[in-house]
């Protein structure tokens, strides 16, 4: 190519990496992005519902705050899912299977609860034993579900993203099948198990939301300590940062990976047990909704910080309850407005991340070039097919 004839092209935008942004500014940008996306979502809601903005806002806040315990429970469950996937994600292990892991855990404890009903009814102690069995079953099932993909990942490098996703659908088919079997083929689902005797139900003080919330807060604290203060957590982080470094310093990477996934599975098992024994006493394929996915996004975009994850979980639970009230009030038939809003919020957070990490500068007709070491990246429409450095 003829260098002399090639005009030096100065891009309209240049982006620099930022190092100096104060923390509050970053938070402000993120909050601003979230606010903008919520406004956009409410405008969409307004158009679809054809209602007054005041009404929509009213329904939104009413729906979110009318049952504060439910709000806290939803937030806690979302946080629980986040905590289940956090250790694995720190290792750069994309566990998309939290849904499936929780489902099988819950399913196994449902089965135990259903078939050991007579045993549990005999005495208070037997009921306690039944709960222990249910807990153990749930824990074991979830751990197995989480560890299977991990084993193949460690030994053969199998793609864990798709593997865990498929495990979700397999779990979901199992749930549909077992529900049919428990209902003796008469209906799709047996509904609430042991409705009459309440055998295998864990009675929570204050109300049914109390135990799950407390347990998940404890789990979150535990995971935080595990990741920041223990050797195990540290090893997982090193593995995620650089697997070669981990190998070089003599860590057993296979052991670490499987151990961490056992922990992930165990947390899913705890949530599954809570679903069965305290919250639902029943199971269906949509028990987990898309919590597993949402939790992945929360964990990633909170930078794996448990406190931020808790706040974001709370905000999303607030949103989901609020929007479900909107859709119910306007009889929209499906509560997917929340997924739309959650999608928009995460899109805007992703966009805002760019502005936090980079500084964009508009170039107005300049002859001299930028200092090369500071140029981070260039807007696409302005990239020349060949960019020659002309000295």
């Amino acid at each position: 190519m003829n260098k002399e004839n090639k005009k030096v092209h100065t891009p309209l935008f240049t982006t620099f990496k930022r190092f100096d942004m104060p923390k509050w500014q970053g938070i402000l940008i993120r909050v601003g992005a979230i606010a903008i996306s919520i406004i956009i979502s409410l405008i969409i809601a307004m158009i679809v519902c054809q209602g007054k903005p005041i009404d929509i806002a009213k329904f939104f806040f009413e729906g979110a705050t009318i049952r504060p315990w439910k709000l806290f429970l939803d937030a806690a469950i979302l946080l629980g899912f986040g905590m289940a996937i956090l250790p694995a994600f720190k290792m750069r292990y994309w566990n998309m299977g939290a849904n499936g892991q929780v489902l099988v855990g819950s399913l196994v404890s449902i089965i135990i609860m259903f078939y050991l009903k007579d045993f549990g009814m005999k005495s208070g102690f037997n009921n306690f034993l039944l709960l222990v069995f249910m807990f153990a079953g749930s824990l074991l099932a979830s751990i197995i579900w989480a560890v299977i993909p991990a084993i193949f990942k460690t030994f053969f490098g199998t793609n864990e993203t798709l593997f865990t996703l498929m495990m979700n659908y397999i779990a979901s088919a199992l749930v549909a099948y077992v529900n049919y079997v428990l209902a003796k083929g008469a209906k799709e689902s047996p509904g609430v198990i042991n409705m009459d005797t309440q055998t295998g139900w864990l009675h929570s003080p204050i109300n049914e939301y109390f135990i799950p919330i407390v347990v998940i807060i404890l789990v979150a604290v535990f995971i935080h300590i595990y990741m920041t203060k223990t050797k195990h957590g540290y090893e997982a982080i090193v593995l995620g940062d650089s697997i070669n470094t981990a190998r070089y310093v003599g860590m057993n990477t296979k052991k670490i990976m499987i151990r961490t996934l056992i922990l992930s599975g165990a947390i899913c098992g705890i949530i599954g047990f809570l679903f069965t024994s305290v919250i639902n006493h029943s199971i269906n394929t949509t028990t987990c909704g898309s919590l597993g996915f949402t939790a992945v996004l929360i964990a990633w975009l909170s930078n794996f910080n448990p406190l931020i994850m808790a706040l974001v979980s709370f905000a999303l639970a607030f949103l989901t309850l609020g929007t479900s009230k909107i859709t119910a009030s306007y009889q929209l038939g499906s509560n997917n407005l929340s997924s739309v809003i959650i999608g928009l919020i995460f899109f805007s957070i992703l966009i805002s991340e760019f502005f936090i990490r980079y500084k964009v500068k508009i170039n107005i007709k300049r002859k001299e070039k930028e200092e090369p070491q500071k140029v981070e990246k260039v807007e696409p429409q302005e990239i020349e097919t060949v960019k020659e450095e002309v000295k």
Partner: protein
Amino acid sequence: MFASFLTGAVAMGVVYLFGCIGETLIEKAGNLNLGIPGIMSLGALGGAIGVNLYFAIFGTGDIIGIFLMIIAIIMSGLFAALGGLLYAFLTVTLQANQNVTGLVLTTFGVGFMKFIGSSMDQSLLTRASRSIKTLFTFYEDLGVFGQLFFSYGFLVYLAFILAITLHFVLKKTKVGLFLRSVGESPQTADAQGINVTVYKYSAILIGSAIAGLGGLYYVMDRSGGTTFVEANIEAFGWLSVALVIFSMWKPTIGMVGSIIFGGLTILPNYLGISNVQLKLFAMLPYIFTVIVLIVTSILDAKTSKPPQGLGINYFREER
């Protein structure tokens, strides 16, 4: 019986084939798009809006199939490509993490389809579906042969044509060579004077539009326009992504693979089993996918490797 099973397998497999071709094109440019389920949902929604648009323009009288098809395809491709544009902007221009962006797109796309779709008139879709389900009306005269090859709607043939076209573009043309080099090593491609950004954007936009047709095909043709909101497009999207791995990034193998995946999806209906067992056998395609994932990773053959730059954003200044 077997002929009807095979026909069903092809018809079901086309949903996956569209997704697979689209994702293959995107992955060849080095981007792992986990937003395919969302993009397919957007395509389905766009197609449904296209159908409504058609009836708004031409009235609800006799359906002119070709116009209906064109409008539906354009709208479906447009919606899906818009989803793709968002993904491309975030991952190529703003350097966002590809997996996370894809997942957000899936959450958004699936939710958006169900949210808007729930307030849509289903009867129009059902009517439209009936008019496009068969392209060649003479197939019944040809017996089994006709059923196997000529009993489908236009989109089925389009899917296979696209797969073969993509194969030739990737293997035989300069554009294909450049695209593959962008996916393998954007640094090298850039040094060669290939505009990495343009290639990535084009591949993602076109790939998304194609994947979106999978959603359109499912709601309009395969399901007969009846199960729009309940449509399990999300699962089909994931299976499409898995099919890409099964096909070893080759559209020709993808065509065969799609029929296998389609066959496994509809197989339980042909086994003569009870409703209860049907629920259990619904996991067949997923189990098969798991086996495929495991076997391909164990074999670790040289030919089955993904593009080397897959999933990694290209920072131009990090050369």
